[in-house]
């Protein structure tokens, strides 16, 4: 709460008769003293921001950020950007939980689901959107879902989106067969020993919901879901745990089908592998965001976010990681490559994608992640 609002509330209480004159003047005096003491230090603290820490997925994404956002930002502000990486969102949240406030500042996180988890742990901040003018280029639907979680405010800016669809080797599975079987391709007994799956409980439950004809955001028959997960498990060669492993399994033909991240499949296709990709009806759509963690130097972070959201940076990152940017194609010319990426929506409405409902998934996180962990290990 800023000082003007605090004063207005005190005045309102005084006018309503909730505060006597002596208390009102006393509180005003105390507020003035606090402001007088705090302001010089606050200014000093802002001026003393020497660096901002950013954590992301590394690789080409980091290189694009460095070239198009971090270096120009440092040149303009004198604030250094320390660039770190993490292997998974789960690993990162553990690091944040163990850290001191302000130690980590901005992270390239997955989806609304993680945003809600951070909010539940009291790790969200409140962005001053006036300091991020490039936010106007972002698809409104992507920001709206975040606002719903944090009562209308934002602790992040949306950055890119994609899908977790089904990848298949065209040498062994035709496009027609894949389309006909849809999500059930991943429980096809003929593919025993030639299937892969991401060892992520959310994705497993999402696809098991599709395989059992249920709404992935509101499955009613969880017994059927667990049975489908067991069926899938018994047909698998391996649960993969990273994008690199996914690509290796598909490229080396260890597996013929798996669910996969759209950008990774596009990268394989660019390398010449004959891998097909499809999003079955109600396939898993997701978005990534640049999240500002509580305790960070806000103005410095907001300015950096603005650099990162600039169309040139967003497009370079999108082309590097093969996921469409969060920029509205009706407001920004996205070039030639991005419209060809899987999951890209030229309308900017994203109506064709189904995103995870954070309330539903977070509400079951503790129970389902544990249950899946057991089933994964043969139970």
């Amino acid at each position: 709460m800023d000082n003007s609002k605090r004063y207005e509330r005190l005045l309102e209480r005084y006018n309503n008769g909730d505060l006597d004159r002596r208390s009102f003047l006393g509180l005003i005096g105390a507020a003035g003293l606090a402001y007088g003491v705090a302001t010089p230090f606050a200014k000093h603290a802002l001026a003393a921001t020497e660096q901002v820490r950013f954590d992301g997925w590394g690789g080409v994404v980091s290189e694009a950020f460095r070239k198009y956002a971090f270096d120009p930002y440092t040149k303009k502000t004198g604030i250094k950007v320390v660039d770190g990486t993490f292997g998974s969102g789960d690993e990162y949240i553990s690091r944040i939980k163990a850290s001191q406030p302000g130690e980590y500042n901005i992270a390239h996180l997955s989806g609304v689901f993680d945003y809600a988890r951070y909010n539940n742990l009291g790790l969200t901040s409140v962005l001053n959107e006036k300091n991020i003018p490039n936010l106007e280029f972002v698809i409104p639907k992507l920001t709206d879902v975040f606002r719903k979680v944090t009562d209308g405010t934002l602790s992040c800016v949306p950055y890119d989106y994609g899908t977790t669809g089904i990848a298949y080797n065209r040498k062994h599975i035709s496009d027609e067969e894949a389309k006909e079987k849809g999500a059930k391709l991943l429980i096809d007994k003929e593919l025993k020993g030639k299937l892969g799956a991401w060892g992520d409980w959310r994705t497993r439950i999402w696809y098991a919901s599709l395989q059992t004809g249920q709404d992935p955001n509101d499955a009613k028959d969880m017994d059927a879901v667990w049975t489908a997960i067991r069926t899938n498990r018994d047909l698998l060669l391996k649960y993969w745990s990273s994008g690199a492993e996914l690509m290796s399994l598909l490229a080396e033909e260890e597996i013929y089908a798996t669910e996969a991240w759209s950008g990774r499949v596009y990268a394989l296709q660019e390398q010449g592998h004959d891998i097909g990709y499809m999003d079955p009806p109600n396939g898993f759509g997701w978005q990534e965001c640049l999240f500002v963690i509580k305790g960070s130097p806000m103005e410095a972070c907001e300015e950096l976010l603005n650099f990162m959201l600039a169309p040139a940076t967003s497009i370079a990152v999108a082309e590097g990681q093969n996921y469409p940017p969060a920029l509205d194609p009706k407001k920004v010319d996205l070039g030639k490559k991005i419209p060809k990426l899987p999951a890209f929506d030229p309308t900017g409405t994203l109506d064709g994608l189904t995103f995870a409902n954070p309330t539903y998934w977070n509400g079951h996180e503790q129970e389902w992640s544990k249950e899946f962990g057991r089933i994964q290990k043969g139970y």
Partner: protein
Amino acid sequence: MTIETREARQPWILLSPSLVAITLLLVIPLLFIVVYSFWLRTATGADQVGFFLDNWTEALTDAFYRDILLYTLKIAAITTAVCALLGYPAAYFIARSKGNKALLLLLLMLPFWISYIIRTMSWINILGVSGAINSLLISLGIISEPIQMLYNQVTIVLGLVHFLLPFMILNIYVSLEGIDVTLEDAACSLGATRWQSFLEVTLPLSIAGLAAGGLLCFVLAAGTYITPVILGGPSDAMFANLVFEAIITQLDWPLGSALSLMLLVVLGALVLVYNHFLGMGQLMKGLGK
């Protein structure tokens, strides 16, 4: 201060940096883990501070954890046995070789220069569907379709043996180096065959090294996390994977703490059994002290 007092204090002064380091880096973090194991994870992922026995009750009574623990101990025991069987002849060969011992020891140390993860992943290029062995067999016309060799219990043991064999060989080698070779000659001169002299003289004298290597391999294998992730199949998880999952995936640090302490206690008990039968002094001998 008398000379006796000064002499009595001297070892403690010399030991103090190590004691401080052990206290700060091992004992205190371990105490934190003990305290954590009695807390609870709430539905939002935050921890509820207090004294709850729920995690310990779950860890000790749930058959799921017991089964994975037994599976882990089984894999560790198989790995240790394979390491001993492969490591003893190699160590014997190095210990008895003349002239090129330094080169052989250097070759033994060579794998340590490469990351354990890279070494583990190298098996994918050897055993994979389009790996070296399948490619060779197909090109020789022995098979027409690649054989599926990866992602099972055998490849986990293979990866662990690859990682741990040098530890076993080094321990046995050090032990064999300390044995006077003329003892074998003496046994032979008294009518024993080479095999008998090995069984009756060399093997009993080198048992300390074998046991030290075995203990080391077993403990390291039982605590492994990355090998089952890279080389294991869908259901091949070891106990350390459960700890990782509880702490990282489920953000359940209290349960993860209880599980990690459970593994620590089991492996600690194993060390106590070792100490009971062989004594820690034997371990020092095995390590060449």
